[in-house]
């Protein structure tokens, strides 16, 4: 079964530093997403990406956040000037074309980001 792969599984960073979270979506998927989940809380939408540009973003996705698909396979989330409140589990997801017979999001196993 195809998987969405996220690396690293756990990232610890100093407040104020930049982090890059990496994801390899399923190869034939066209839509890519980042979500975050603060421990014990709901899963929150950050951003969706299609055709090499952002389709939607939430209010959480401020100007410290950026996404990129640098090489056609990886999908990265960069957070600059990290804050303590950025500590969360970050999930990458991908999906095929909306309306396809097997449409649905496939999530990666997440990256736990700890800002200290």
């Amino acid at each position, binding site marked *: 079964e195809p998987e969405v792969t996220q690396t690293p599984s756990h990232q610890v960073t100093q407040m104020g530093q930049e982090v890059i979270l990496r994801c390899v979506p399923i190869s034939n998927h066209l839509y890519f997403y980042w979500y975050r989940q603060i421990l014990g809380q*709901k899963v*929150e*939408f950050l951003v*969706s990406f299609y055709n090499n540009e952002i*389709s*939607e973003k939430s209010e959480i996705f401020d100007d410290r956040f950026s996404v990129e698909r640098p090489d056609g396979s990886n999908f990265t989330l960069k957070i600059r000037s990290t804050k303590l409140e950025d500590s969360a*589990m970050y999930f990458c997801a991908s999906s095929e074309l*909306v309306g396809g017979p097997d449409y649905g*999001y496939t999530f990666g196993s*997440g990256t736990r980001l700890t800002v200290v």
Partner: protein
Amino acid sequence: AQTVTQSQPEMSVQEAETVTLSCTYDTSESNYYLFWYKQPPSRQMILVIRQEAYKQQNATENRFSVNFQKAAKSFSLKISDSQLGDTAMYFCAIGDNDMRFGAGTRLTVKP
């Protein structure tokens, strides 16, 4: 905007019994998708079941089935013959290009 409400923060069920998790939603879209995701202690998000809003027939996947009431904007999940491995957080979600999740229901299956 699309919103999802799960009114049961925690539920428990005896092994082999049936449990129903509630979900209501709001959307202005005429066609949309609804999902239930399971998040076990490993914290991975696992798709349990999917329903397309234009399909009247309720989706089923083995022991999992939904009761989709479009007019009432209700999408409940029924788990039959509950197993210990069903213990997890369950999230209801709506959307297509930007899925929105409910707050989750923590289900515990007791032996």
